[in-house]
């Protein structure tokens, strides 16, 4: 009976273990770095809150227009963020699917070995048990690894077109955010640039000093934020390119060239993320 069980297990396992192991480490790293990129959500919020920041600088007429635009910005904000959430969830799942931790079945195989050992009295020798356990470990690993790489392959191939569409939308939106921010900067700083030179009476001195300090702070704030739009766009472009290249090279994921290329994207994404979080 024992032998029959073992033979059955062996046949089942061997039938599925025809391909070698595919390296998914770089896929996992890339998906992980893509999911953690950041920038877009923060800039979406900043875009949503344009009205509040501009409000003190607006004339009543301009404020009326701004209020209406504010309503429209807020109405679509959830949609803007949903795009990113979809993409992040996709990348997180891809990272998890390409993950290695959950596929380490050693402990379970040891259980199997223990079970087999308990049946060894019926003629099966210890070394046979060890051999069977070892082989099963190897073959079960091969089953899951093959299933795993096939699943990753399907996800990347089937998802690529939509991933590209969503990232493209995010890049376009980030460009619009950037333009709106530039327009906001000119609204805020422009007021001071015009008012400060006109206030040259003695009585205005204190006010002018305060205005200059405010102008300095605001100038610094906009300079910092300007950089973030560029970084976010660069990051999204890298994610789009990396996913596209991964899609094109799915059949040679284990090749040195492909792994090196994906590692390059991961490196760039990490640099961009650090730059975004370091400011």
């Amino acid at each position: 009976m024992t032998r029959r069980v073992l033979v059955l297990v062996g046949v089942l396992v061997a039938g599925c273990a025809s391909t070698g192991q595919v390296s998914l480490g770089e896929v996992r790293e890339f998906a992980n770095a893509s999911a953690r990129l950041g920038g877009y959500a923060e800039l979406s919020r900043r875009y949503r809150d344009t009205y509040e920041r501009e409000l003190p600088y607006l004339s009543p007429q301009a404020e009326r227009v701004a209020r209406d635009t504010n309503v429209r910005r807020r109405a679509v904000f959830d949609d803007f963020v949903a795009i990113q959430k979809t993409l992040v969830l996709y990348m997180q799942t891809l990272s998890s699917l390409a993950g290695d931790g959950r596929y380490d079945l050693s402990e379970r195989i040891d259980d199997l070995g223990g079970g087999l050992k308990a049946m060894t009295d019926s003629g099966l020798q210890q070394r046979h048990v060890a051999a069977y356990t070892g082989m099963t470990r190897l073959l079960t690993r091969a089953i899951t690894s093959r299933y795993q790489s096939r699943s990753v392959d399907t996800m990347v191939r089937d998802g690529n077109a939509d991933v590209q569409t969503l990232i493209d939308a995010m890049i376009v939106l980030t460009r619009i955010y950037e333009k709106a921010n530039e327009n906001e900067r000119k609204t805020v700083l422009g007021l001071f640039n015009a008012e400060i030179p006109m206030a040259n009476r003695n009585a205005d001195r204190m006010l002018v000093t305060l205005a200059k300090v405010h102008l300095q702070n605001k100038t610094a704030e906009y300079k910092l934020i300007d950089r973030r739009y560029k970084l976010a766009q660069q990051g999204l472009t890298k994610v789009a390119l990396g996913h596209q290249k991964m899609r094109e090279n799915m059949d040679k994921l284990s090749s040195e060239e492909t792994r090196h290329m994906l590692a390059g994207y991961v490196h760039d994404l990490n640099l961009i993320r650090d730059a975004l979080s370091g400011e």
Partner: protein
Amino acid sequence: MATSSHSNPGPASDGANTTPPSTPPREQAASSLPNQPSTPGAIVTTVTPGLSPAAPQADATGLDMAGTDRAHALSSMQYVVDLADSVVCIADDLHERILQEIAGYNGRTMPDPQKALMRALTDDERLLRQYAHALYADAATFVIHDLKEPQHRLMVLTAEAAEKIRRIGVIGEVTGLVGGILLLVGSIARGQFSQVGAALEKIQLHNAALKTLKPGSTAKT
């Protein structure tokens, strides 16, 4: 685009609601200014050509939606962004001329009526910038217009992948379960009842894990 034209009351909201940028209310006032090297009125005329190709079309879509081709053209996000950019350009030029006018006084105190005029022009500039903002908001809305479908497909794909992750988990648990059952059967066969408890515990453990990995055909790989 059409939404923005309607929803934004013009600076002088009497009719010119879709072409506010080309008709700043201070134009006449500014051009009548004395002692100016070049009047803001002249600025407005210089920048108007930049806007003129866009403005009449904006007007047309806002008011008559007859031509579907035109409406289609206006629904192009890039067109709206370009239009917004041109409004920003006009505001930039206006700002530049305001600063030039102020700089012309070279530190001398500007008379109050002149200041009032400069402030009025600054208000106009900021109003123009709000129209540009409104157009950017329209453009952004166009961007997300057709995204529901790709988002939905990607969500389905992600859910499928999550199911595959679950099934791979099942492979592991089934392997553990088989081990437990073998241990149980072996222990009973050999009369080692002391191990039966441990074997049952293993079976229960993996069985419980399999249950959490539901739904559906858990035992299959």
